[in-house]
């Protein structure tokens, strides 16, 4: 961000004496910089350790690999020869320069709800960032998905572009939150489950998605599987600092915080929190937890006592901003244990922000715990201290081990 701020400053200085609209343009670029943060463009379009917006790391989709494109104003390899109409079309319609169909890994279904002003700001900003020459061959999909016109049919089925319409019955803050979450922030891209075709299951809005061998947990207000136990302040703290009194972001969400939400204004964070607190979950009754005397639970408790309690505490309480609380945690109570299995096997490093810089890491246990032991300890965690969720099976662990080894 520092670099971007600096850049904006240089541009401003250059424009000061130019003409009357200089300050307008400066405002617009500055606003666009913030919109790029809201939309977290860098998450996909900047490779870890790479030049800003010059192309990202490959995305694994259920259909194959996609490499996010270079969106710097480089004329040869970026979007330097795009017009505003091309850019607007990409965001609004999923159609890039020359009628090229985009894949919805680029979340144009979300971006299409953005206001014209926001898109214009974004364009103003992206035109002024440093051009980087980096040729990206985005489409690495196998046939038939490699045929971009396939998306015409997909769009017909799954996509109806329309700008966000406020709900007059709700507060301005609620509406701002709804706009941000569904538009630029595109939270549902990860947190809403997908159909076989990769479209949002809109009837299960924000009730946990699975992508790239991670679960994006249920973030509805559901008291069991969702974040119903979090106050709005907890949501704000999490997004602003990467940690709150319950949890600490790791995996892809740590990157979202690092690249995007930590730079949001407090007003925008509060808006999203207000909106999220109003999203109803499935509301289904939690399952009956496994009996504490179940042999699976006894074995799991032994492993937990020996391997987990030194950080997460025998009560599952964890420690604030350091060791996530496991008791009554959404990611623990969710149906899908993907993330849980994953972090036990490969370990996990939490994110780091200026406010919460600790960056604690969970050690890898892949070398130490067999499939049965990972399954029993996670089953124990998912059925203790008020948690209740389906047991984890050794086969699920085995599958994840194989997936991660690839």
């Amino acid at each position: 961000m520092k670099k971007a701020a600096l850049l904006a400053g240089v541009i401003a200085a250059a424009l000061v004496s130019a003409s009357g609209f200089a300050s307008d343009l400066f405002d617009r670029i500055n606003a666009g910089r913030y919109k790029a943060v809201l939309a977290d463009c860098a998450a996909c379009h900047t490779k870890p350790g790479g030049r800003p917006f010059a192309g990202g790391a490959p995305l694994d989709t259920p259909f194959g690999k996609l490499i996010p494109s270079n969106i710097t104003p480089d004329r040869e390899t970026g979007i330097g020869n795009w017009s505003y109409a091309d850019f607007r079309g990409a965001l609004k319609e999923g159609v890039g320069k020359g009628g090229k169909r985009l894949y919805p890994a680029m979340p144009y279904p979300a971006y299409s709800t953005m206001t014209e002003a926001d898109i214009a700001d974004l364009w103003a900003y992206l035109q002024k960032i440093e051009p980087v020459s980096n040729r990206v061959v985005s489409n690495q999909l196998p046939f038939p998905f490699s045929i971009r016109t396939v998306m015409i049919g997909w769009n017909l089925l799954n996509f109806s572009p329309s700008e966000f319409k406020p709900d007059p019955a709700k507060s301005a803050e609620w509406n701002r939150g709804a706009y941000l979450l569904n538009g630029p922030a595109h939270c549902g891209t990860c947190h809403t489950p997908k159909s076989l075709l990769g479209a949002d299951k809109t009837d299960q809005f924000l009730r946990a998605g699975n992508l790239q061998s991670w679960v994006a947990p249920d973030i509805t207000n559901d008291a069991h599987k969702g974040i119903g136990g979090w106050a709005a302040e907890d949501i704000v703290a999490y997004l602003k600092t990467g940690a709150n009194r319950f949890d600490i972001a790791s995996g892809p969400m740590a990157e979202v915080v690092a690249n995007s939400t930590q730079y949001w204004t407090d007003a925008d964070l509060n808006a999203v929190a207000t909106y999220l607190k109003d999203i109803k979950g499935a509301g289904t009754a939690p399952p009956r937890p496994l009996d504490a005397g179940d042999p699976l639970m006894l074995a799991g408790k032994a492993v937990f006592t020996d391997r987990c309690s030194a950080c997460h505490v025998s009560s599952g309480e964890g420690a604030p901003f350091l060791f996530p609380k496991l008791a009554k945690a959404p990611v623990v109570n969710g149906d899908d244990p993907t993330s849980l299995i994953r972090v036990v096997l490969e370990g996990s490093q939490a994110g780091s922000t200026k406010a919460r810089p600790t960056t604690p890491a969970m050690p890898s246990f892949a070398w130490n715990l067999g499939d049965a032991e990972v399954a029993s300890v996670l089953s124990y965690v998912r059925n203790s201290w008020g948690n209740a969720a389906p047991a984890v099976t050794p086969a699920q662990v085995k599958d994840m081990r194989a997936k991660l080894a690839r």
Partner: protein
Amino acid sequence: MVRKLPRKDVVIVGLGWTGAILAHELTDAGLDVVAIERGPWRDTATDFNVAYAPDELRYAIRKDLFLQPAQEAMTMRNNISQTALPMRDYGSFLPGTGVGGAGTHWNGHTWRFFPSDFVLKTHLTERYGASRIADLTVQDWGVTYDELENAFDRFEYLAGISGKAGNLNGRIEAGGNPFEGPRSREYPLPPMQMTYAPTLFAEAARSIGLHPFPTPSANLSKAYVNPLGIAMGQCTFCGFCERFGCANYSKSSAHTTILPVLMRKSNFEARTECEVLKVDLASDGKTAKGVTYVDVTGELCEQPADIVLLNAYGLHNVRLMLLSKIGTPYDPATGTGTVGCNYAYQTNASTQVFFEGKNFNPFIAAGALGQTVDDYNGDAFDHAALDFVGGAGINCIPTNGRPIAYRPTPPGTPRWGSAWKKAAKENYGNTLTFSSQGSSYAARGNYLDLDPTYKDRFGRPLLRVTFDFPDNDIRMSNWVSDRMQQIATTLGGKQAVVGRARKGWNSVPYQSTHNTGGAIMGTDPNTSAVNRHLQSWDVPNVFVVGASAFPQNAGKNPTGPVGALAFWAADAIRNHYLKNPGKLVQA
């Protein structure tokens, strides 16, 4: 071929406690800082994995985290009449290596020395007369306790020390150490929950009029967020503290208190597995140009810098000064020269009390979890009628029950066979241990220099340690052993065995990694290697920070004062040196 690297504002040699503190302070001041560390990078999750961190053989017996003698050994002798030979394995003390340094595998006792310790020569001369210290070379530090109070406070809050103040702004507080200097506020965290043995020890000590208090500990009594915003966990009493890295972020170290913030800064870089060979001096010998080091691939590199900070382990600071020809080497024959003088150690003795029918559960322990009695430490008691100066803290801090090394048996027990086995079983949970940790006062014959014979793997001479316990310190320690006997008798039990210090420092059994002096601070360039700001008198753009600066050692663990000196030196650089580079003190 030598690879010349781009200039930095500051090069730091050694990324342990002091290196990390100075790096943090100086990057905050806007300087571009590189730290060069000869050991590996280490991080909690990878290197101190909770599943294999508690491995006595690997870490305590084979000493996996320590500096290996193959990388750098030292030679030792008790006096100049002997020929120094290499310590082929480190035994009596165990220097650290790697990011975090010895602060990674320390126990966590975090003290302030007494106010009188900082003006020791003046204080003892005024109270007992100059003749009482005639055979010692004790000195004043050149900085007072009051001047350092803020630096102590900052270190304690950085590290989240658990303890109870005994002296708050001059008011004596119940439950703390009544002999300590005044502190400006309470410890950041309350004392740790107490295990059984120290609880009994404290009751016994109190019953005979002593003043036991919880040992100030860097094993955290509660979860904590330090002033840098870094979160730490609660100590879990695993009993794998000293010699081990902490698996759950509950022991303060550079890792758990500074590095997460330091590493986020764009004006900081760490280079590991790079060993500094020397500080490069300009031809006038009065200005450091930077350092020369061997990088991880074996390539020789020159790192130019405006300021060179020696933040290695104290003994290595001294060796680097000698190898780089900074200052004048000490000559014990004439008592002249300053680099290498006033090497001091620690004068210890231990006590075991054997009981029957107890469950001391020695494995439920932490490195600094226990009780201390300071009634006989430093000059907390009147030495007028005694034949020594100095003193010892008496500590009941059972750190572990790790069975390769901890199998107490009464004297006379065979070392093997069924009788040994029976005694080992009976006494494992029935033994209470406590010990005295005594001051070590500088004497003319104890010093550090370069060995004439033995070389390291680069062909550089090893450091030579010439040391024996001064007679004063032996008398002190034995007098304190008599006091330990009183406590042991009060404790009861079926048998007490009270250790007594003897002449002839032995480099084989572990005693203490509290090696001090060799590059001591002071007010006179003829008797100290660095000034009161830790700045070399001879090469003013070199600062030497660590226990190497202690003019003598007190009956307390050195890390607290070492941390305070790091903040003190950082302040001097930030507030004075940067504004006007040059000598901060005119001799």
